[in-house]
């Protein structure tokens, strides 16, 4: 028995023996390494349990890692500390990963004060561009009214629609047509769904969904007289707004109408989405801009942006949806900070009234007004500025075919496509496109198999529509502490249902005395000296 007890005790390191070294000089062996080498158990286990050297983290843990010293449970404390160390290290290592980005963004650089980037014309840009990149400069001469265009998320495919019902989708790089339709009725907008295999067209009365070959798949009868369409790719929602002023969300994976919101602001002609939180921005006739989510029956934000109808809207994807640009028929363009709606960051007047707006992936703002397209680059456009002076121009391009009704940047390319009455023209805007794409999100070079796999994967990862909020990070965050409490005199009254059983079973004697009843009615969040005094007297009386 005693042998069992003796053996069961933790295996101790072998007794330390003094080493007799023949050389005569004695090395100090106080290090942990030396101690560990005696521990046979540890050595036998370590070989099989340790991480292989190639996987071990070599860099020292980063500074300022959160410590959990206040937690008494040692196991939990160790786990939390390890987790936060790992997270901090990951964040630090993310910087190193930028070294692996191979492709370089385009740019225009002026040398000296006298040179201006906006003096550079398209012919110069095309000359300087490489052979592949120069293909981006195109003119499509089409009749059939002013044209709108839309790119897929990977920038490979393009859909165009003319006012009079000419619809075409094609791969613009290889110039292969997917489908071409003459719908013969007014068409107001077009958008691709999750990828180029489906697209939706806002037609005269309803929204129709077509597949890649142009076969009509669905007529969405609940979307009446639509003017604008947006597709939220991570939620699989098709949002439309129409002349009746209803914003409707339809889930394209299940086919259900998820939400219908009445804006109460009349016909709406302007819509855009924030790609980082899937909030829909609407611009209205009375100059207000409203922000909508499917789970709120009223706008999350309502903003009086202009003194006339709102003509154009855009949200900057390069800053994580922080900046929004609006333009109105009053001829102003304003840039707003979405975290603080008190006044625009900067505003300026444009010639020719209502402007179409679009931000590129790298934060270049394109403004199409009158007979030209102006682009503005990043640091100037975000910096606060009082006075209505136009920010420094980046590039400008005149187009003599009014009206210009759409501007679209091509993702992962330095291309801006402008839709106008004579068709479409694509111009090169160096530095507007993100050079390094991520194949797991959107890949311009993906093949058929990859597209199919992505479709299934995205469908599995579909986020529920009620998870759309202004703050996209709320999903992994802790619930905030409630601001409202029912505390009276710093004593929190626990609701009856949360009381322990013993308390619940306690008889409520003397609950209905008239003074108590009176006090109960007075009990509010406000500390009323009269009520406090009465409560004191009540205690005195009962005590």
């Amino acid at each position, binding site marked *: *028995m005693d042998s069992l007890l003796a053996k069961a005790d933790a295996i101790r390191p072998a007794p330390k023996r003094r080493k007799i070294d023949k050389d005569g000089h004695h090395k100090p062996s106080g290090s942990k390494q030396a101690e560990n080498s005696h521990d046979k158990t540890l050595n036998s286990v370590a070989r099989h349990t340790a991480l292989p050297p190639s996987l071990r983290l070599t860099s020292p843990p980063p500074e300022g890692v959160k410590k959990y010293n206040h937690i008494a449970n040692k196991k939990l404390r160790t786990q939390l500390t390890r987790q936060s160390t790992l997270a901090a290290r990951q964040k630090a290592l993310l910087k190193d990963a930028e070294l692996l980005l191979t*492709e370089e963004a385009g740019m225009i650089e*002026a040398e000296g004060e006298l040179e201006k980037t906006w003096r550079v014309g398209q012919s110069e840009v095309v000359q300087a561009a490489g052979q592949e990149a120069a293909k981006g400069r195109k003119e499509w001469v089409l009749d059939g009214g002013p044209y709108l265009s839309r790119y897929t998320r990977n920038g490979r495919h393009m859909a165009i629609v003319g006012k009079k019902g000419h619809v075409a989708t094609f791969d613009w790089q290889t110039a292969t047509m997917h489908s071409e339709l003459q719908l013969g009725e007014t068409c107001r907008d077009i958008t691709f769904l999750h990828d180029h295999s489906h697209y939706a067209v806002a037609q005269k009365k309803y929204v129709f969904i077509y597949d890649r070959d142009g076969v009509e798949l669905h007529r969405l009868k609940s979307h009446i007289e639509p003017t604008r369409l947006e597709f939220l790719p991570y939620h699989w929602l098709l949002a439309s707004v129409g002349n009746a002023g209803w914003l409707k969300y339809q889930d394209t994976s299940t086919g259900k109408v998820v939400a219908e919101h009445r804006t109460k602001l009349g016909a709406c002609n302007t819509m855009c989405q924030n790609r980082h939180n899937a909030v829909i921005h609407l611009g209205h006739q009375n100059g207000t801009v409203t922000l909508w989510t499917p789970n709120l029956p009223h706008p999350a934000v309502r903003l009086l942006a202009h003194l006339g109808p709102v003509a154009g809207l855009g949200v900057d994807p390069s800053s994580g949806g922080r900046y929004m640009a609006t333009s109105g028929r009053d001829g102003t363009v304003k840039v707003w900070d979405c975290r603080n709606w008190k006044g625009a960051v900067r505003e300026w007047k444009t010639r020719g009234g209502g402007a179409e707006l679009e931000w590129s992936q790298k934060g270049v703002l394109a403004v199409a007004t009158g007979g030209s397209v102006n682009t503005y680059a990043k640091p100037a456009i975000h910096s606060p500025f009082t006075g209505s002076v136009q920010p420094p121009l980046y590039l400008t391009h005149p187009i003599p075919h009014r009206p210009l009704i759409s501007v679209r940047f091509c993702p992962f390319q330095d291309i801006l496509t402008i839709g106008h009455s004579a068709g479409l023209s694509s111009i090169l805007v160096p530095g507007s496109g993100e050079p390094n794409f991520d194949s797991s999100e959107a890949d311009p070079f993906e093949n058929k198999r990859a597209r199919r796999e992505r479709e299934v994967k995205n469908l599995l990862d579909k986020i529920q529509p009620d998870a759309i909020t202004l703050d996209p990070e709320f999903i992994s965050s802790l619930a905030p502490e409630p601001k409202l409490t029912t505390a009276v005199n710093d004593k929190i009254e626990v609701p009856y249902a949360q009381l322990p059983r013993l308390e619940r079973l306690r008889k409520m004697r003397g609950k209905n005395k008239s003074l108590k009843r009176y006090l109960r009615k007075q009990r509010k969040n406000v500390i009323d000296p009269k009520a406090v005094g009465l409560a004191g007297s009540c205690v005195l009386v009962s005590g």
Partner: protein
Amino acid sequence: MVKISVLQHAPSAHLPNRPGDPTPTSRNLDPLMHPFAKARERTRALNAAKIERIFAKPFVAALEGHLEAIETMSRRPESLTAVASGSWDGGLIVHDIAERTHLMRANEAHKGKVTGVCFADEHRLLSCGVDRNVKLWDIREVDENGAGPSESRKPLSIFPGKTAFNSIDHHRSDPLFATASTIVQVWDETKSAPISNLTFPTSIETISVVKFNLAESSVLASIGSDRTFTLYDIRTGKAERRVVMHMRSNALSWSPTFPTSVLLASEDHSLYTFDVRSLNTPTQIYKGHVAAVTSCDWSPTGLEFVSGGWDRTVRIWKEGAGTRPEVYHTKRMQRVTSTLFSADARFVMSGSDDGNVRIWKAKASEKLGVITTRERAAIEYRDSLKEKWKFDPEVGKIQRTRHVPKPVYKAAQLKRTMLEARRVKEVRRRKHTRAGASKPKAERKKVVIAEQS
């Protein structure tokens, strides 16, 4: 001169060099390129939790052969497949659980029920019964003498005893075995009488289970009808310690990896692990069964154990986690009388009153068969997602919830109500007695009534 450069992708870097090559992928870890990363990860975690529950099909097979309830089961050492089971009809079967065949079958091994089986070595099996005999069997089809399978298999030898035996266990290395009846007896395989009798002085109880320690093989533990747990040493031939508990135990199992840890399945619906160095409190209480626990067995890893209960469920516990076990049940499975972990820790066997040995997966949603590297990677990713998001209310709920048969659910409900009422009564009693007159007693301190040596 103005410097101009326009972005262009080199197709050669993004397209496969030759047809059939995998398409090159590129990565950009910029968080702006991955909107809704957290929300999508949560959706994946939710799907992973759901997938786990969808594929949770733990039942593998039922092995028939016995006419009546199964009383005892034993695993052949150093074998993944051979499991012996003894039944109330006196039958003894050695199952091959991979082939689902019988390696050996003795229909009337004992008169009355077979109460204990254990393997003496690879080919020999010991069984004991209420007919006061211990029998040694050769399980091979053709034994050393060349005799083939005959209709009625004869035991190699018979060890007659004076009283009915309740349990038997073989020494790890020596040709010794111990039996439990009114006393614990140690036998030599070559002698027909017990070589020593072990009993705690002043004890007049029926010993129900006896087990040798796996590491310190001369130490022996037993549990008896007097609600006792006793430790013996066969070298001294004495009972060393005894613990009287508040309810009797039904089964006993030594931990295979931690030699001082012993698991007791108790009549009071709980399981206890004890450290034999300090027997006054259990190291952990495992609560979950809603009726008496009748059997238990450690996984060979020592990280899990299985228990079967009178409530017709089999439960798999993690060592050190006293609640929320994995629950297995079937419509046709009756009271579980014996449970066993397989030697590779992947399967669990349960023998029940309906006379079947059932094989279950130890991890309910594990896929049997070949798993490719990609599939393995996906499984591991899903596991880490579930671990990461287990505090999310929705994900956690799916992971935790187990549907149990209505009687079990109702019994658990009733038990909860009763325990709560008892607790409230205790609180009230304390409230109305003099302050400090009675202190609340920790649940662990209530288990052991007396420790004797």
